[in-house]
């Protein structure tokens, strides 16, 4: 049962990776990577149950924290990129 869940999650991760490669805009890629990270958290948890080792859940918690921080950091960078090359709109002054 856990193996089937793990395979299902791997399929979802493969589709997310496909969107990461296909994604025309940079935000599509960040979206796909964020989804991939969340599914990794689930995969680690299910794999921990599959092999009967409850300490995998600590890894899953850590990965969930790091994934969120990483996505927010990349988004801050992308917004900085957009602000630098964009002409300031008149209503901003």
């Amino acid at each position: 049962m856990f193996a089937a869940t793990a395979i299902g999650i791997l399929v979802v991760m493969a589709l997310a990776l496909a969107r990461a490669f296909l994604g025309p805009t940079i935000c599509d890629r960040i979206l796909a990577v964020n989804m991939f990270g969340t599914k990794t958290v689930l995969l680690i948890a299910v794999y921990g149950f599959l092999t009967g080792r409850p300490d995998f859940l600590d890894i899953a918690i850590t990965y969930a924290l790091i994934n969120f921080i990483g996505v927010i950091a990349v988004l801050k960078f992308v917004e900085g990129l957009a602000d630098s090359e964009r002409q300031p709109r008149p209503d901003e002054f």
Partner: protein
Amino acid sequence: MDLLLPPLFPDLLLDLLSMALLIGGVFLGISGAVGVIRFPDFYTRVHAAGVTDTLSAGMILAGLMLQAGFTLVTVKLAFILLFLWLTSPVASHALARAATHTGAKPVTATSGEPSSSN
């Protein structure tokens, strides 16, 4: 009523319930992932990804919680679930905000042509 139920009533029910939750979670995940692939523009994809992040993760983790019963493992699973439910909407919001700043145009009924060809 309880005569009809098999003696191993709680375990059988827990296994069936957690199996149903796991299958439901995986089904939602795959449907969300197909949505992320097939939707025409960025904003609809954020919605599809949001579905998989919250409900699919919630069902899968709930299915695992049933398997673990009242132990420390369930507390850790509950923490992961709570953390995912709190942070994935924040991440999706930040993502949509960054997309609007970098000029991603939504596909409206009038424009017709998707902002990104795929």
